[in-house]
C-alpha cells in the first residue's frame, strides 16, 4: 500500500465520518482513479467494496449499508458490521456510545451502553463463529 493509496483511504474515511455517508468515487477526485485506488485498498483489506458495483461496502469498523448493529457515538448514528465493530466504532471515534441490536437467538432487543471503554452490561457474551484464519475468506459473512 503506497502513500497515495493511504492518502485516498484517509480522505475516504474522513468524508464518511464528516458526512455520515460514503462518498461516491467522483466526490473524491477522478472517478476512475479513485475506484482503482479503492480496489487496491480492498485487496489489502483496508476497506471493502461491493465487487459487483465498486461501491463502498465497509469502512471497517463502520458499515456503509444498514445492518443489525446500530451505534450512536460522536453525535451521530452509524451501522456496524458486527458486534466487534459496533464497539470498535466507539473506539475509533474515541467516544462513549450506545449499541442497539437484538439477540440472534431469541430476538430480544439489546441496548448496550459503552462508557469509558467498557460495556455497561457485562452479562452479555460475544460469539465468533468463523476461525481467525478464515475471516477474510468471506468478510461479509464473518
Amino acid at each position, binding site marked *: 500500500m503506497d502513500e497515495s493509496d493511504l492518502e485516498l483511504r484517509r480522505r475516504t474515511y474522513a468524508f464518511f465520518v464528516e458526512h455520515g455517508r460514503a462518498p461516491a468515487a467522483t466526490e473524491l477526485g477522478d472517478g476512475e482513479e479513485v475506484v482503482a485506488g479503492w480496489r487496491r485498498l480492498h485487496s489489502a483489506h*483496508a476497506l471493502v467494496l461491493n465487487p459487483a458495483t465498486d461501491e463502498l461496502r465497509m469502512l471497517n469498523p463502520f458499515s456503509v449499508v444498514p445492518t443489525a448493529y446500530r451505534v450512536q457515538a460522536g453525535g451521530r448514528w452509524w451501522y456496524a458490521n458486527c458486534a*466487534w465493530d459496533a464497539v*470498535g466504532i466507539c473506539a475509533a471515534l474515541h467516544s462513549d456510545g450506545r449499541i442497539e441490536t437484538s439477540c440472534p*437467538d431469541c430476538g430480544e432487543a439489546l441496548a448496550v451502553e459503552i462508557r469509558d471503554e467498557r460495556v455497561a*452490561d457485562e452479562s*452479555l457474551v460475544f*460469539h465468533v*463463529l468463523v*476461525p481467525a484464519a478464515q475471516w477474510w475468506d468471506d468478510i461479509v459473512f464473518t
Partner: protein
Amino acid sequence: MNLFRSEEHIARWLGGRQPGATIPAAKLAELAHAWWDDRISPGWVPHTRDQNQAILERLGLTGEFWQLA
C-alpha cells in the same frame, strides 16, 4: 460475530453447528479498543499480521481458533 444474552442462547442459535469462540462482553470491549482505536487517525498505517496477533495474544485469545491467516 454477534452479541447474545447468554451462552444458553448461543447454544440454541447454533443448533447442530460447530461452535466457534465465546468471550465475555468485557473482553470484547478490550479487544475492540485495542483493534480499532487508531482506525481513523490521520497517521494510520495498516497493522501487520504480527501486530494483530499480538493484540489477540495479549488478551489471552490464543490457540488454533485465534491464529490469523
